[in-house]
């Protein structure tokens, strides 16, 4: 079985359209981010408490809200009923997320006590089955994790830039970095549109996408480099790049397909905990492939056109 061999699509010729699509997607993403007032950070980054509880008999979220209306924290009584409370996976599993409070008291433990006394006969007999997951992140740690994440992304991008600059010419590095920024922006935008919570795992997935997208881009660049040497007679840079993309098209599509299949399976069957992780990877695989063909390569062509125009202008002046 073969497909996509001996294709001759004019990717470079359609680059203006691709450019518009990319800009459009980025703008939609930025608008969504603005509307949502920034990314939807999980407690990993803003601090707070997360509780995932499994009830033997489902408790409607409204009742839980009511039970949390008056919670005694130390010597204060607070109203936690407006926290994020939702079903998580099934009606019996409840996820509660509380913003961080400036108190020494272990809020999560207090909430558990409160719910235990409010719904004593809806808790599994073996209490260990009740608590699925509990996370408390203090404000300082949240801030530190945020910083770590930002550093990580910057270091990764820098590492990539250096690596490509070393293996290929400088313009390739620039084209690749543009594609990477494009990928990260669009992925963040789509995540924001879907109101996906940005947790540590999601950031890890973002970094993985950076690596993956570059992986893809390099395969195309490698081909371009090879064809530049082989098709020396061809004066039109764009034609060489086009040929290169077409040559590597079947590999690009197949690899993206296999990667997408596995990530799709993770997304559908992997469970709630890595849901965000899998979603981010899915978006990233699609966008990463798109950017290798429709962003990185056109940038190269544009660069070349500008360089040639400059050379021509300089030539004429003499």
């Amino acid at each position, binding site marked *: 079985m073969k497909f996509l061999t001996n294709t001759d699509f004019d990717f470079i010729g359609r680059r203006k359209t691709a450019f518009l699509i990319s800009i459009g997607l980025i703008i939609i993403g930025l608008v969504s981010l603005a509307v949502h007032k920034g990314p939807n950070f999980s407690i990993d980054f803003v601090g707070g408490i997360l509780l995932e509880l499994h009830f033997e008999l489902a408790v409607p979220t409204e009742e839980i809200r009511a039970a949390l209306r008056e919670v005694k924290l130390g010597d204060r009584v607070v109203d936690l009923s407006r926290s994020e409370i939702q079903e998580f996976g099934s009606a019996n599993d409840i996820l509660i997320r509380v913003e961080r409070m400036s108190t020494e008291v272990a809020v999560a433990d207090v909430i558990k006590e409160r719910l235990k006394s409010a719904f004593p006969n809806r808790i599994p007999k073996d209490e260990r089955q009740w608590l699925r997951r509990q996370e408390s992140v203090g404000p300082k740690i949240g801030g530190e994790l945020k910083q770590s994440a930002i550093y990580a992304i910057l270091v990764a991008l820098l590492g990539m830039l250096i690596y490509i600059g070393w293996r290929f010419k400088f313009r390739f590095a620039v084209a690749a970095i543009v594609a990477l920024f494009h990928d990260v922006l669009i992925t963040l935008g789509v995540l924001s549109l879907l109101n996906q919570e940005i947790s540590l795992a999601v950031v890890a997935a973002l970094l993985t996408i950076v690596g993956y997208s570059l992986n893809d881009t390099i395969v195309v660049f490698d081909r371009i480099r090879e064809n530049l040497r082989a098709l020396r007679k061809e004066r039109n840079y764009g034609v060489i790049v086009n040929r290169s993309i077409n040559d590597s098209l079947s590999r690009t599509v*197949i690899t993206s397909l296999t990667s997408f299949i596995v990530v799709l399976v993770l997304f559908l069957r992997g469970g709630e905990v890595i849901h965000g992780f899998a979603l981010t990877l899915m978006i990233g695989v699609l966008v990463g492939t798109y950017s290798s063909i429709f962003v990185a390569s056109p940038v190269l062509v544009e660069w070349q056109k500008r360089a040639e125009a400059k050379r021509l202008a300089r030539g004429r002046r003499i």
Partner: protein
Amino acid sequence: MRGIRWRTVIILFFLALAGWYIYPTIKLFSLSTQERRAMDPAKLAELESRSLRLGLDLMGGMHLVLEVDKSKLTPEEAKDAVDRALEIIRNRVDQFGVAEPVIQKQGRSRIIVQLPGLQDPERAKALIGRTAQLEFKLVKEGEEVDALLNEIDVALARRMPRAKEQAPEDLDWLFAGVPPLFQHRPFTSLLRIYEDPRTGKLVSIRVAEENRPKVDRVLSDPEIRALIPPDAEFLWASETEVYQGKRYYSLYLVRKTPELTGAHIADARPEIGSGYDPEIANKPIVAFTTTDEGARIFSLVTGANIGRRLAIVLDNKVCSAPVIRTKLSKNSIITGNFTMEEARDLAIVLRAGALPAPIKIVEERTVGPSLGRDSIEKGKVAAVIGFIAVVVFMAVYYRFSGLIADLALVLNLVFLVAALAGFGATLTLPGLAGIVLIVGLAVDANVLIFERIREELRTGKTVRLAIDNGYSRAFRTILDANLTTLITALVLYKFGTGPIKGFAVTLSIGILASMFTAIVMTKAIFDFVITRWRVTRLSI
């Protein structure tokens, strides 16, 4: 030919190595629960140490980040406070009985504690977080206390608003709702004072639960604090008592300097009290033994203060304040309203020692065992489905060559798990996702190679030449591409936390293994097939 023989040797060597490292894991995971319980614990521990380790998010357990509060320590003390705290926590955790706990220092004032397979997170947190400072302080009674209470009353009454003038805001809460009769005794009106009926001396002070915040505020007022003599302090009881249907806290005026501290305790045991005293009999108590020095001090103090009360203070709250009836020396007991578990935990904490400074839990992540099991199940299913999908696709699209690539994929995963087990690495949930991802990425190398081979065949080259060319031309591309993913994995490892680190490790090893299996091994198979069976047309 010689080159090929070397290659075969190396491949077989790695296969044998992988088999050696993966065997314990396979054995461990194929044990049923009964077999596990029947096994000799030492052997089981050894098997577990050589197998793949599961992270907290797959096994269930608790991850804590503690911060040592050095604010009240001298610079001298602060220097090794964290190390001392670490030792003490390790001691406590050891006695708690968790298999393979991880207790490490992080940065300058943080400690990481990981307790895999923990069943009772609340108890563990309480055990770890307690400062556990034990002190024995003499309780002041009688006239001294009376006089102080009087002084406080007078000082407050002076600040009381006169009926016609504006009430000073700072004492509004105190005087609001106080009947005029008590307005010249604003403080003592909040207390219930008990006197010894025979001597008329003040014996104890109790405060109703609802008045406690007010009393606290009075006692923390700077003017009032100045009235308390420098050698004394007020301490609350740790629990309420019920009298006539209402809850009360006892309040004690004690001598600030402790007579005896936790450092003087050599051993502590939880026990059930015996004898006739209703506070002790048949109730859980903690029996302790002092050191020799402690015994000397203890007998001196108790000998000189018979009839007075000695407050047993734990973390600045009074556990109990029994009356000293006889001279005590080496052995004594601590009573309080303990459950057996509380007595056990208190004994652990006394044995391990008090923390040099209070610690705060700044991050906690607990995964219950049910979620851990669920995650493993889901991960396994995803891995299997993904694997089958890719295997089928490769076989269909590249036919026989696709099957070779599939074999490489299987070996890739074997190498990956063997390496993880061999390095003692931990498999986390993102790590499991990483394995699934590797399934998709590993075939990429083969896709690159096969596409090249197809191209070469199209230009009319012989099978052997096409294969050789395909491999050599694709190799550089594969190297470049995989290197970038490795750089990302490195960054993730350096900046990531536990589960993310697990992902980075899995990704790195997976990619390295994939390069070996996809390139070296498949080439070996191709070469073998071509030479043995003189193939002229390649099924690709």
